[in-house]
């Protein structure tokens, strides 16, 4: 640790953290993985996506409720608190409440208790903290604070590309005219860029036998450099799309506030979200997908030395996750699902680096201790042989879910296709859809958002 530590106050207790880490990662390094509890069954929640989507990490930070701890950087003297029922009623009461979840069946509507008014007020006061959405902000957190800056108009562009991964960078390079590239990462090259760089620098060169991942890394670097040098391209890094409005407008947010951009053509290449599968207790903190791992073990650099981690699934993300975990010092158990077909070089890499291998297994249950993951139980999918692997972290590398929200809002016709991970554009060919929306926008949906897998993208980049 070259930089001096930053000290935060977690529920009154000072914790030393590495500058640049997120609050969620800093707490993980101090063994705090349970950041909130679910409203009804009181189930532990943590940073399971680590990318600001799952909201398992909502906490009260410096007196402001509902802050995503996975996106909030640590700062000196920062006050971090859980905001769930336990924070209001105490942990024993929270545990008791968690056992009453069945008294509130699906379809129960809390606004039923609206009469008499006096009872309703008491009921509201009691039930709102149970939902774990916190108290109002401390007055000191907002009184006298300057208002956010007015939103900016980024103007009209020939092309706006959303997503800076393999597909987005290719679209930028293939496009013409003034182009705006919007990406939520700081580095170009998408969610895997940093993971690939860290894995490549790992002890024992974990990527040495993983040829396709090395090729992907080279291609991402090459495309990123070409985009950086292209005079027609403006890059908006660390920028998130907040909403899309027909026919042609995007509302985005960066560190300085909101901005609006319009375009003659929009390329939606926003990638995919982790899909963890629906096995028992898969919602335990410690169970995550590869994209969450790339963030937590990448930028956030959580301490994994000597920790055991299971990487389940198949395909390039499984191998990249294993390589990144290895580079971070974790003990890797590679659990191959029945469809996995690794080549000899990959298997040799696993053998060389001492990864334990399980073949032909499916996750059956996550087993917890003190609210977070302690082991993963597998079966063979046919009710046969059960096996368990002790682990603090399980990375589930199933099919990614295409990110559909922006494409849908721009007017794309989407259809549910489980073979391609979720809702994909109707009629997409080879991970790509081009056409005009009913409102008259030229729209392209590309890459994982159009149902391509990373394996497909690697085919595309492999000579």
């Amino acid at each position, binding site marked *: 640790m070259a930089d001096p530590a930053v000290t935060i106050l977690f529920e009154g207790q000072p914790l030393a953290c590495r500058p640049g880490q997120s609050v969620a990662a800093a707490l993980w390094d101090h063994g705090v993985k349970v950041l909130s509890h*679910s409203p009804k069954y009181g189930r532990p929640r943590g940073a399971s996506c680590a990318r600001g989507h799952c*909201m398992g990490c909502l906490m009260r930070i410096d007196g402001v409720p*509902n802050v995503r701890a996975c996106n909030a950087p640590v700062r000196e003297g920062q006050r971090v608190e859980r905001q769930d029922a336990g924070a209001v009623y105490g942990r024993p009461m929270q545990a008791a409440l968690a056992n009453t979840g069945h008294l509130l069946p699906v*379809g129960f509507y809390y606004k039923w208790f609206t009469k008499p008014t006096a009872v309703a007020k008491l009921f509201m006061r009691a039930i709102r903290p149970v939902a774990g959405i916190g108290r109002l902000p401390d007055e000191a957190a907002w009184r006298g604070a300057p208002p956010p800056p007015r939103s900016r*108009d980024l103007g009209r562009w020939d092309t706006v590309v959303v997503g800076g991964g393999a597909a987005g960078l290719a679209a930028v390079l293939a496009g013409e005219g003034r182009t705006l590239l919007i990406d939520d990462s700081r580095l170009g090259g998408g969610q895997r860029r940093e993971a690939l760089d860290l894995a490549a620098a790992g002890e024992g060169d974990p990527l040495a036998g993983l040829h396709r991942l090395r090729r992907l890394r080279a291609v991402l670097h090459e495309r990123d450099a070409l985009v950086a040098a292209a005079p027609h391209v403006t890059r908006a890094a660390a920028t998130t799309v907040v909403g899309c409005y027909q026919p042609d407008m995007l509302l985005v*947010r960066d560190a300085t506030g*909101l901005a609006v951009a319009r375009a003659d053509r929009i390329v939606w290449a926003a990638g995919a979200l982790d899909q963890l599968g629906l096995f028992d207790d898969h919602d335990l903190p410690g169970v995550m997908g590869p994209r969450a791992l790339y963030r937590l073990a990448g930028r956030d650099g959580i301490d994994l030395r000597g920790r055991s981690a299971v990487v389940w699934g198949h395909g390039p993300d499984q191998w990249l996750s294993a390589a990144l975990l290895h580079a971070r010092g974790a003990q890797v158990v590679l659990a191959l699902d029945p469809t996995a077909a690794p080549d000899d070089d990959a298997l040799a890499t696993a053998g060389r680096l001492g990864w334990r291998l399980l073949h032909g297994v499916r996750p059956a*249950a996550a087993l917890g201790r003190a609210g977070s993951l302690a082991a993963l139980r597998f079966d063979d999918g046919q009710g046969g042989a059960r096996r368990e692997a002790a682990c603090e972290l399980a990375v589930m590398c199933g099919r990614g879910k295409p990110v559909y929200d922006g494409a849908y809002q721009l007017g794309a016709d989407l259809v*549910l296709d489980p073979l391609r991970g979720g*809702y994909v554009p109707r009629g997409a060919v080879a991970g790509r859809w081009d056409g005009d929306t009913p409102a008259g926008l030229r729209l392209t949906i590309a890459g994982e958002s159009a149902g391509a897998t990373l394996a497909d993208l690697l085919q595309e980049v492999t000579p």
Partner: protein
Amino acid sequence: MSKRILCRCEDVTIEEFGKAYRDGFAEMEALKRFTGVGTGFCQGKGCLCESALELARLRGIDPSQVPLTNIRPPIEPLTFEELASLDLPPLVGEMEAAPRGDDPEVGP
């Protein structure tokens, strides 16, 4: 206790989703409103595909027959303070150009 959670934000288990279906909620839009699936903090990022696939399984239909429920902006949490910071001159121009008040559908 062991559970198989379909929607984390609203705490809906796969059994509860199935029961709601058997109680007569046979479309995703209805199931979303009744069970709360997809209406929590994450707005369906964690559960809408999973729920739609489960509905296709329960109904014995092809997944392509289950349409996506309406996904309205914003797709990221926004504060009211941020919303109040919005300046949208081009859109305001278009809205002012649209007819208002005398629309017979809307009434005076």
